[in-house]
């Protein structure tokens, strides 16, 4: 079982690499080095703040775009091209396929984030000339960004298991945008009354709370996100990912591959 999942994950990773997904790193490298040089020339004392903010936001956005655009095709492309037929006619269970695909994409994003993180730290070193202790908080922000990717991967897989790539992209991207304002949504729900409050609160808690996973501004100001937040967010992200993946598996287990 584990070897089959690892095999599918490895192949998904290889597909992403060979389809030149990691070429986004070039764009990122250009962006971050250009920003570092530019900021280094015009900013006074806020170089670090600008580089960390810009760098981590870019890491997050690049990753989200990759997660959505690869994630939505993970299942539907395999069905459309019928590559799935020769996989599922082997002793591979459908849930193993979904989990393998998820880990393959998650692995791609982790590797991608790793190289981007090197870029962020490189730019930081360029503008600040040395690292300080609060710079370690950047690693926490990167960790939470990876948790964000896990949720998006699982959601993209969920939508990919029952809809067309276009619709899956629309659903996943909409949820990402709404989830980025989840805190505001919860605040808005608190201001309503009666049955509207029930519905609004339910919807606000149903969408993934990406705003809680965003500590970029905090670490840019060299503040610690706190262990409590890290733990809570980890549990939340794992629970949300597991739920979305279970949904994807439930749908895919019943799907006729016409």
């Amino acid at each position, binding site marked *: 079982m584990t070897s*089959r999942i690892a*095999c599918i994950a490895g192949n998904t990773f290889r597909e992403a690499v060979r389809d030149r997904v990691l070429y986004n790193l070039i764009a990122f490298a250009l962006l971050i080095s250009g920003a570092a040089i530019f900021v280094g020339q015009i900013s006074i004392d806020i170089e670090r703040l600008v580089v960390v903010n810009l760098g981590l936001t870019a890491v997050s956005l690049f990753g989200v775009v990759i997660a959505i655009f690869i994630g939505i095709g993970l299942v539907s492309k395999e069905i459309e091209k019928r590559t799935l037929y020769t996989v599922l*006619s082997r002793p591979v269970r459908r849930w193993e396929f979904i989990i393998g695909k998820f880990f393959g994409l998650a692995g791609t994003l982790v590797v991608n984030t790793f190289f981007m993180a090197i870029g962020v730290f490189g730019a930081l070193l360029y503008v600040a000339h040395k690292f300080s202790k609060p710079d370690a908080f950047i690693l926490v922000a990167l960790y939470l960004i990876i948790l964000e990717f896990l949720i998006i991967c699982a959601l993209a897989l969920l939508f990919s298991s029952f809809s067309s790539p276009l619709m899956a992209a629309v659903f996943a991207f909409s949820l990402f945008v709404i989830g980025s304002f989840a805190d505001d949504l919860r605040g808005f729900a608190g201001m309503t009354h009666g049955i509207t409050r029930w519905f609004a609160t339910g919807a606000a808690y149903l969408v993934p709370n990406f705003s809680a996973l965003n500590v970029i501004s905090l670490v840019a100001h060299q503040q610690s996100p706190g262990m409590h937040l890290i733990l809570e967010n980890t549990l939340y992200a794992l629970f949300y990912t597991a739920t979305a993946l279970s949904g994807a598996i439930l749908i895919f287990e019943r799907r006729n*591959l016409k």
Partner: protein
Amino acid sequence: MAAIEILGLEKTYKVGFWRKRPKRALKPLHLTVEEGEIFGFLGPNGAGKTTTLKLLMGLVFPTAGTARILGRDWTEPEVKAQIGFLPEQPYFYDYLTAHELLDYYGQLSGVPGKGRKQRIEQVLGQVGLHDVKGVQLRKFSKGMLQRAGIAQAILHNPKLVFLDEPMSGLDPLGRREVRDLMEQLKQDGKTVFFSTHILSDAEALCDRVAIIHKGELRSVGAVEDLTSSVEGKVEIMWQGTYIPASMKALGGECHVTGDSVRAVIAEHQQDAAIDVLRRERIRLIAITPLRTSLEAYFVEKLQHVQTAAGSGVGSGL
């Protein structure tokens, strides 16, 4: 033990956007394939061949019915370790090389890492792809992809191989090679179940065939049995171009081809015809009973169904 027992498998899809209406792709199918035989599953396009294969592979779920493969319930994942499958017009991960593709499928099928590389080399040689094993599949022709498909189907040394239109996209030489490969599989004790609408391939290869049309099984049997229903005629060939008048008198249709004559006469006239040739001191080359070709049988069956449907009669054959 039967290799495949299909017990009333049927499939109805719901089609349409708003008002879903049922579309029956496969009527209850009962079929048994014995171990070690090459079994041809014949039918025109849209007959239900691929639906049957997809049901057996667990790619679509049946509306009703069940099946047993190699004596076990067909849904058990362990059964799949013992079967190979080539889908119709296969498409593979085109960023992989042929060797990587087989390595991937080998891992999924549980082929142990120790002997996997050797087995891959062997299978690549068997299907004639050894020289291009390092080339990405996106550079493969249709025929080469078909060969890669056959390679992945037999890689894990399965007991039972399902091939959906295996000759599709192959040139005459490639078709010949696939036929040889299927015969080799049979000699190795494997069971081969293949769907095709190329009847000459089925006639040359199959021990038994089934004919399916409009989702319904129309006929099953050994090729010899299905094609032996001749009108009691024999074909006589003799050397030379001379046609004795007494041979014509037997009512035979005679045709001169090169330096021989071919005559078709009624079976009961056979002895008289031989006597004529002896009397005329003509050298006899061959006497063979005239058989209906599988193609003629197939066409007759389908026409029968269409006629019955047109006249409102039940479609049973």
